């Protein structure tokens, strides 16, 4: 199979997955007890008012009609309107997504820059203090629930020492950058500073588990590779140890790590819900929680579709990278 065909096949599989997500989320609405009308109408609303609201929202149509209408509108890029606010779902998702992606990317960058060196050090200095430090850190990091970590960080660093804001997001990175180009370096630097102050704690909270996980993976991957015969062969050829470690061993170790990175990035986008909630971070996770509480199905559907599609895209990219690193994947 050629590389192009491989990608096409994966792409088509992705489309089917997204369609599955759309359908399941849509059906969930009908097996969930309670009607969306309850979210819109006050408790004491008369049956007539409920009926009118249902008609206005199109909920009086049969299930298959609603489903086909929804699919047809989705194909045209229309994700519907919020039951509650009447605002377009696509507009809401588009304005919330950057905050979530920003948080996921910053968490991942922090995690990658910390974890891979930590893992390498840990593996190359096995059973030395650095190794014990790194393994202890990763054990604690994997075992700590992130909502608890978030609350503790806020209590210590925000409430007690006043170093960081407790919650919220002053600017997006892009807005801060725009301020820099529009209003000059000092205003821009100030905006960047505000941006950074707000994202530090949520990013640490979200990234800790990830950092710990990749550290462990890198360590065990490196150890495994270091024991391979080709390493001894290269050693025997007289290659310098650092070249062996970083050019050959680390490169081979990275393949499974990239898979996990990709999967985890998807998880970060979808799984930032709790962290976003703790920090009132105005991203897709917060939107999702609000939509669930309000039974705002169009927003709920739009958020889940975007999260689902995000997973699929990240996986596609991972597959593409993976395949280019290891041609055997394409052949399989």
């Amino acid at each position, binding site marked *: 199979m050629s590389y192009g065909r491989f990608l096409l096949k994966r792409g088509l599989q992705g489309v089917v997955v997204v369609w599955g997500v759309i359908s399941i989320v849509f059906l969930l609405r009908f097996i969930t*007890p*309670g*009607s969306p009308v*309850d*979210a*819109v*109408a*006050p*408790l*004491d*609303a*008369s*049956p007539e*008012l*409920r009926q*009118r*609201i249902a*008609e*206005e929202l199109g909920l009086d149509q049969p299930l298959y009609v609603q489903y086909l209408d929804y699919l047809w509108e989705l194909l045209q890029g229309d994700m519907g*309107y*919020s039951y*509650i*606010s*009447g*605002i*377009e779902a696509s507009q*809401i998702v588009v*304005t*919330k997504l950057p905050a979530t992606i920003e948080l996921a990317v910053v968490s991942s960058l922090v995690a990658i820059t910390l974890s891979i060196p930590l893992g390498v050090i840990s593996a190359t200095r096995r059973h030395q203090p650095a190794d014990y430090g790194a393994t202890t850190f990763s054990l604690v990091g994997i075992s700590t629930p992130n909502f608890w970590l978030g*609350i503790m960080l*806020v*209590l210590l660093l*925000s*409430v007690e020492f*006043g170093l960081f*804001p*407790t*919650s*919220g*997001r002053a600017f997006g990175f892009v807005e801060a950058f725009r301020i820099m180009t529009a209003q000059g370096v000092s205003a821009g630097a100030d905006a960047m500073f505000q941006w950074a102050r707000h994202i530090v704690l949520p990013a640490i909270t979200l990234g800790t588990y990830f950092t710990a996980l990749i550290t462990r993976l890198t360590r065990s991957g490196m150890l495994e590779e270091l024991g391979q015969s080709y390493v001894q062969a290269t050693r025997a050829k007289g290659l310098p140890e650092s070249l062996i470690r970083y050019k050959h061993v680390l490169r081979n170790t990275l393949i499974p790590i990239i898979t996990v990175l990709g999967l985890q990035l998807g998880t970060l986008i979808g799984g930032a819900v709790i962290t976003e*909630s*703790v*920090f*009132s971070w*105005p991203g897709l996770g*917060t*939107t999702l*929680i*609000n939509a669930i*509480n*309000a*039974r705002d199905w169009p927003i709920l559907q739009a958020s889940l579709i975007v999260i689902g599609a995000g997973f699929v895209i990240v996986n596609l990219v991972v597959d593409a990278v993976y395949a280019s690193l290891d041609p055997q994947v394409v052949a399989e």
Partner: protein
Amino acid sequence: MSDKDTPNVGRRKFLGFAGTAAATAMAGCGGGGGTDTDGEQNMDDTDTPTDSGGDGGDDTPTERPEPETRDGYLQRANRRAHDQSPWVFLNRQYSVYGKSADIEWEARADEFIDAYEISPATDSGDDVVINQSSMDSGLDPQDHRETPTDNIVLQAYEGLLDRDREGGIVNKLATDYSRIEDGLIRFQIRSNVSFHSGDNLTPEDVAYSINRIVDPDTGIASPQQDQLAGVTGAEVVDGERAVDVMSEGLNPIVFSLFASYGPIMNKSWVEANENSYVNQNIDGTGPFVLETYEQDVQVVFNRNDNYWREAAEISSLTVTASSEASTRVNSLLSDESDIIVNVPPQEVSRIENNDGTSISAVPSTRVIFNAMRYDVEPFDSAEFRQAVNYAIDLESIIENVLDTFGDPTAQPTLDGFFGYNGDLDPYPYDPDEAEALVEASGYAGVEVELHTPVGRYLNDVEIAQAVAGYLDDLPNVTASVNQRDFSALASEVTDGNLETNPHWYLLGWGNETFDASQTLIPLLTSDGNLTSWSDEEFDRLISEAQSLPSEQ
């Protein structure tokens, strides 16, 4: 912390003889310039104390003379409900806020945070930040009706009438109001008021706004349609700066409704814009002008310097939201917020022990109760229903579950509301009496299940567990709790069909009109939208009450 620490007997006696007048002043439009009906209102209960049950132990209503006023009928209906116990009467909720020392502000019973009333107490109190549990559900003030949204949109939109901090009716965009005849009232519209866009407020805007809510041909399927209950339409009075509002029948609480519902919008602005635009922008007449709106993130207002009253004291107002209570508390403690809403009991001490922050608690308009369906076993027995009330130690629930942020209630109507019966006391904790009543009801050995929403009301599950626990402690009843999703429970209760309701369920009910009828009619009359009870005598009392003008 609250007036429940004072002896109840003393307070109730006082209310029984003089307090109904006070209740009227609180609930009614005493200060509003209303010219409605009898000015010598509400004397019948003080003249004839037996009418409101001043004789205590006697609970046969037929032995009392018929009431003469609407207030009297509502009080009698409350007595009937107390005696027949369609509910386990629980408590009145408190609204608990955290407040920064940078501002001066007092909470209101109806949970609306009126930023116009906030004064800076220090230099940093000029830009006020309110952090609540959720953001608005859109900025169209006629399309939504819940406290978080009100706390945003009503800083910029105003109604014809409004309420003061105690719940009394005051003028807003109306300068005067009067009842012309049954089903017809007239508002005089204030001049020299302009919308934020610069357009002047006209009677056409007022008539359009009312019709947009109540008339399907003019407007939207507004959730407020049923809250302006009975109002059928509005029209401009020829040659006058006035608007006539029509109702079906007498509509005794119509002014009270307009004090809580029906914000006024700019007709030309609404007509020129899409629904989605109206939900993300504001053109009101209020003391604050919208600066920026980030949906679900924050709303920033600036002071309206062209306001028809004096401009507000604070220069800007920001409303944000954190769904996590601990996040709100942390934002107050680190001085990022000036007012936070819904402080849970376990967080109270953190706020009180911190320099520069304090707790502000006020009895809300919400009552928490357990409805018992009158048409199913064992709740079809009044004795059994009374037994459940005797079985629970309400004082202990309030003390231990609610950390004293609640007042016990003996009736569906709250203290200070129009129609409150000051002579009713909560059922005492008397497990022996409860056990005997269960025997008398013939349902000894029965198993019952209390359905409760999770997380909808303050410590709702814990309250339900306590109630079921007390009942389960009786040797002849087994009780348990069924935790439910609120929306699913609400769907069953609100579908207009009694048979789909759980047999026994916990619910809360807010009443922004400060009038007994808005609780009694939907929740307890035979054809109420959420009723669990049918009682001819009760229905008759309510029907009589609604045929009389309010003494407001």
